[in-house]
């Protein structure tokens, strides 16, 4: 591999995209891992993919539809949960499969094979356009700005939502906002890593960081290093050896997880528990 590849436009775009999603996913992932929300991210990625297929089917913006479907699912799931109709994981489980069924339905209705749609399923970082980058950049900045703005509120509700509420923080609203940010993160990353794998990008770097970080901020620092490292490394490796980019990124992140787990001072590997 020579430095020449860095002069290719598609490679520059691919690397920019991987830095953006590597950083974004890992920071959001810290909340997801600590608050035990893995399942909701997985559910949203399928909803977002259904949005993409709907967009291609009807000829409206696939990314716009992905945002709509992703957020819509979060709103419905949260609504069911808040009214006490259903436990969070049950309603997520339902929507997970329901939106996947929708996606399959829309794919079937399209009739013809559309490579672009499958790009959203499996991820195609090397075909990221300048326009994609602009959208990703804006969405990612928006999400990160909100995290920064409400860092202490998110910190508190992630640690102890009931207590945050009791001290007068609008905990329920911040939890809802957090779910929305997770959905947006999924959408931003959809094209690069694909609907099937996007969730790995959110959970794995944060899980690796969990082995090493002593504070939530420290954990975010590690997560960004792992996330950006595996995204950039994955892109370069996939180009060099002609491998599918999404899979390469995720496999690299997983390898880093085992390194982190081995280095962990506390061997906290088994301690990640769901707390819906």
């Amino acid at each position, binding site marked *: 591999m020579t430095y020449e590849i860095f002069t290719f436009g598609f490679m520059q775009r691919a690397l920019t995209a991987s830095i953006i999603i590597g950083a974004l996913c890992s920071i959001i992932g810290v909340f997801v891992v600590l608050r035990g929300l893995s399942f909701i991210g997985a559910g949203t990625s399928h909803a977002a993919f259904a949005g993409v297929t709907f967009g291609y089917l009807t000829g409206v913006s696939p990314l716009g539809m992905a945002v709509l479907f992703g957020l819509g699912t979060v709103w419905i799931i949260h609504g069911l949960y808040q009214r006490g109709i259903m436990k969070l994981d049950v309603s997520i489980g339902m929507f997970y499969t329901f939106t996947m069924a929708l996606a399959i339905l829309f794919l079937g209705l399209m009739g013809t094979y559309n490579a672009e749609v499958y790009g959203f399923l499996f991820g195609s970082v090397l075909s990221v356009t300048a326009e994609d980058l602009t959208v990703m950049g804006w969405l990612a900045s928006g999400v990160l700005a909100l995290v920064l703005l*409400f860092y202490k509120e998110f910190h508190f509700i992630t640690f102890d939502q009931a*207590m945050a509420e009791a*001290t007068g923080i609008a905990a329920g609203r911040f939890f809802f906002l957090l779910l929305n940010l997770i959905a947006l993160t999924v959408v931003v990353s959809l094209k690069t890593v694909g609907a099937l794998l996007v969730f790995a990008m959110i959970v794995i770097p944060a899980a690796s960081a969990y082995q090493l970080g*002593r*504070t939530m901020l420290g954990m975010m620092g590690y997560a960004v290093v792992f996330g950006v490292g595996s995204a950039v490394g994955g892109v370069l490796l996939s180009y060099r050896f002609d491998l599918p980019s999404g899979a390469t990124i995720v496999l690299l992140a997983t390898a880093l997880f085992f390194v982190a787990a081995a280095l962990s001072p506390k061997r906290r590997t088994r301690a990640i528990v769901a707390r819906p």
Partner: protein
Amino acid sequence: MTTNEDVIRFDRATIHYRDRVALHDITLGIRAGEFIGIIGPNGSGKTTLLKAILGLVPPVSGSVRVFDCACERLRCEHRARIGYLPQKDLVDPHFPITVAEAVMMGRYSSIGLFRYPGKADRAIVSEALTAVNMVAEAGTPLGELSGGQQQRVMIARALAQRPEVLLLDEPTTGIDTPTQHAIMELIRRLHRDLRLTILFVTHDINLISRVADRLILLNTRLFAAGPPSDVLRRDTLAQVYGKDIVVTDHGAAPYVIVGDHHA
């Protein structure tokens, strides 16, 4: 029964969870600076009483007023003035957080939106840690502390709110006797030095009767409220705890032994 000086006032308040009555027709006034002990068997509504004060569970009838403001309308600023130590909170031992950070969370509500903790907040945190004698552990991960130490940290967090009212839900349960007495001594000192209004829920009647100005005996309804010597009478307690109750005159304060069979 209630006067204008009351910081907390229940007026014929009834509280339900779905179809279950947790508190029925409670009328009660608590004055600023009082040290109140709340006793009653399991499920008698002690925790619910504290949650009602925080405005977390609204009354279905009657009213609950705190700082002369109805609880349904208790704005978030009011909650910030009430320190709360929940009943045996299961802290995730692996959550990456230090002792000082956990105490700082007590400041978050007062700091307000769009702002970060400043120098003054850090000073309050170290003051709160000093009060519970945990300064040396400020940088320690919370999960590495013992249960009793964690309890002190949680008290420090409540103190960091700079509260006027402190609600403590069984702060000494599951803690060894010397630490229990240390925590009790700490709370007494805070009451004395900071003139806090304290509501202390406990099953340890003999521990609380020595320090509380008044005891409140609950069993869904309010059975008694008054100085310990008035409340700790055999016939009063028997209504709530059943017949197997022994009250002995143990020097100045009555000593209570609750039997196995509840009413």
